[in-house]
């Protein structure tokens, strides 16, 4: 079997390559000297439907760097905007994310990695960066298992931390909070029977699971729970099934890229008028475009693990003002998280005594009572933000409209 040999050869080549990476990285890390340039990179899906979100995130990062004049403690900050998506997928691509992570650890001038957007992508880059002690700040990952023991798979999050140290931090609240907040909101809206769908991905399924678990706890009846085929042409048959259960609310744990818009469309075309609730993976204008506003208006609810830009106060309001002034458009929901991730990283670089990876990692971990655009918060022992404010939105006249603050801070 020639094919088999070829596959074996490729596999052994690949393992050789990874060995090479490891041994390269094992060399002692030189501490960077004053006057030198230090680099920050971001790894976000720039190709595909997440582009609108990630563009404003990158803008946010750039603004944070510009704010300090591109200099921290005498060091010039260079920033590179990397893409972890491929046109074939139109979405983040595991291979590209792995390449980015390997490229980042090899370049010793890189001291901070902002990313990723999708939780699944972080699963890939976290262990790679962790081995080399390169600090990673995610502006958007919400899968709890990445940081919180006992919330994901058994070996999570240990499996992402081969060195034993924590190098991964995030400035957004996690899904276990968002899923339960959504279930509570559904109950508040008067739904008793809920049908839960998910896109079978880390983010979507994770959030749907929490919704289901917490929903049952607070007395919702779960009349259906299914993983969808996210590439299907339509969901007519599924909608017929949903209609037959008499569900009073349909929850979809998933993203715009995984066909949230098609589900919304098919629900309405199939005569299901029950409210449709989605998590923040759909909190982007692309979701409204894909669904057709008439299918969403007034009966769609979106939870978001934070506050929309125009509800921000203090430093956040200043950020929004500056953003509109600079780019002429309202920042998308995640822009401020990009900004915050970059700011907290720059702050840590400033505080770090030596500008090497380990000192900067330790400085990020030591972030306490940080006065940021999202309020005053700290990183906890898992690397999670202590900020827990979430918000609920609806769609009105083809636009997202803020309804209320959910969850509250605690």
């Amino acid at each position, binding site marked *: 079997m020639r094919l088999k040999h070829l596959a074996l050869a490729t596999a052994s080549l690949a393992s050789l390559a990874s060995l090479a990476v490891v041994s390269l990285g094992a060399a002692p890390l030189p501490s960077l000297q004053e006057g030198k340039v230090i680099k920050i990179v971001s790894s976000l899906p720039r*190709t*595909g*439907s997440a*582009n*609108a979100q990630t*563009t404003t995130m990158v803008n946010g990062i750039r603004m944070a760097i510009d704010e300090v004049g591109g200099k921290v403690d005498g060091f010039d900050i260079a920033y590179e905007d990397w893409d972890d998506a491929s*046109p*074939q997928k*139109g979405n983040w691509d595991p291979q590209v994310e792995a390449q980015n992570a390997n490229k980042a650890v090899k370049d010793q001038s890189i001291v901070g990695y902002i990313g990723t957007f999708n939780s699944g992508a972080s699963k890939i880059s976290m262990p790679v960066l962790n081995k080399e002690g390169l600090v990673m700040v995610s502006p958007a990952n919400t899968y709890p298992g990445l940081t919180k023991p006992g919330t994901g798979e058994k070996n999570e999050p240990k499996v992402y931390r081969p060195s034993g140290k924590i190098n991964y931090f995030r400035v957004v609240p996690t899904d276990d909070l968002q899923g339960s907040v959504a279930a509570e909101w559904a109950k508040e809206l008067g739904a008793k029977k809920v049908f839960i769908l998910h896109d*079978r991905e880390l983010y979507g399924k994770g959030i749907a699971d929490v919704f289901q678990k917490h929903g049952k706890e607070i007395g919702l009846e779960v009349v259906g729970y*299914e*993983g*969808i*085929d996210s*590439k*299907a*042409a*339509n*969901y*007519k*048959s*599924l909608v*017929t*099934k949903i*209609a*037959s259960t008499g569900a009073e609310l349909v929850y979809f744990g998933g993203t*715009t890229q995984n*066909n949230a*818009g*098609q589900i919304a*469309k098919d629900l309405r*075309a*199939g*005569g299901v008028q029950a409210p449709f609730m989605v998590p923040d993976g759909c909190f982007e204008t*692309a979701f409204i*475009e*894909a*669904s*057709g506003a008439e299918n969403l208006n007034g009966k769609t609810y979106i939870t978001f693990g934070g506050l929309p830009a125009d509800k921000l106060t203090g430093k956040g309001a200043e950020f929004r003002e500056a953003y509109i002034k600079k780019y002429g458009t309202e920042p998308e929901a995640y822009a401020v998280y990009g900004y915050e991730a970059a700011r907290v990283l720059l702050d840590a670089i400033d505080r770090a005594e030596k500008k090497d990876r380990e000192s900067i990692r330790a400085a990020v971990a030591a972030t306490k009572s940080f006065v940021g655009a999202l309020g005053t918060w700290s990183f906890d022992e898992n690397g999670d933000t202590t900020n827990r404010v979430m918000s609920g939105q609806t769609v009105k006249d083809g636009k997202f409209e803020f309804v209320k603050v959910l969850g509250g801070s605690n």
Partner: protein
Amino acid sequence: MELDVQYLLQQLVNGLSNGMISALIAIGYTMVYGIIELINWAHGDLCMLGAFFALTLIGALGIGAWSGPMAAFGVVILLLATAGFCGSLNLIVDRFAYRPLRRAPKLTLLVTAIGVSFIFVNLGLFWGGLPMTVFGEGNAAAAPKNFPAIVPATPILGGEPGQVTLTVRDLMIAGVTMPLMVGLWWLVRHTKLGKAMRAVAQNPTAASLMGINTDRVIGATFFIGGALGGFGSVIYAINNGTIGFQLGYRAGMDAFTAAVLGGIGSLPGAVLGGLLIGVARSLSDGYLEARWTPTLVFTILILILVFRPSGLLGLKSKEKV
């Protein structure tokens, strides 16, 4: 679950209407395979470009705002123009990509088709990024695009909970698909061109010795297959209401599976395969769980191919188109 007749019938309606669209696209695969034994990988992506063409046309002519009889007229314009577009594009591809390779090994042709498929996908990505009314700012090229609901999903039968519902869209699908299939059958069986196509399928060399211009006949086959794909892409887009540059892969895969199931090279086989797969998907979504659907479809395919390697209606003889 006790047998709920209304529920079952509704799922059959869903399945048949999706299946007819697959069948229309499947014919494009089966015709080309029948005549030059090429699995035209680019066919699904050709349909994707057809959907983009239709959406662009809607934007250019403002068809989205038409209603009533005008909307019906709009659909006819879309169908004909898109069929012409896809047919011509397929003809051009045949002329410049496949015809020079007529005498090359079949594998070369297949790899070329995969290449054409990549070109189409990237054209679709580029197309979706052009700023225009229907695509918005064009800054999210890969994002799914909303296709206006020109044909409403208004029920013409049922519509109340507990009734089997048949919508105007279901009617449109049947109304477009069935005449086309009958027409195609008539064309292949009863016209001079059809006779020539069958002759080329049987033996190209002998056919050309008999004075048949094989290149022209093959070109005509590509045109017709592409045009049917064009019709398919318009009803696909109207029915689903969302298009994206990646829809071709999935739509093509479903249709290709249908063609293989029915017996690739056989026209009635493609139709039968499309309907069967549509119904199987729908029943699986309805009675099992949605996540098992792709598994079930391919299990059926494998089982049928084990017992009937040439597909349900595939013939062992050389007569294909």
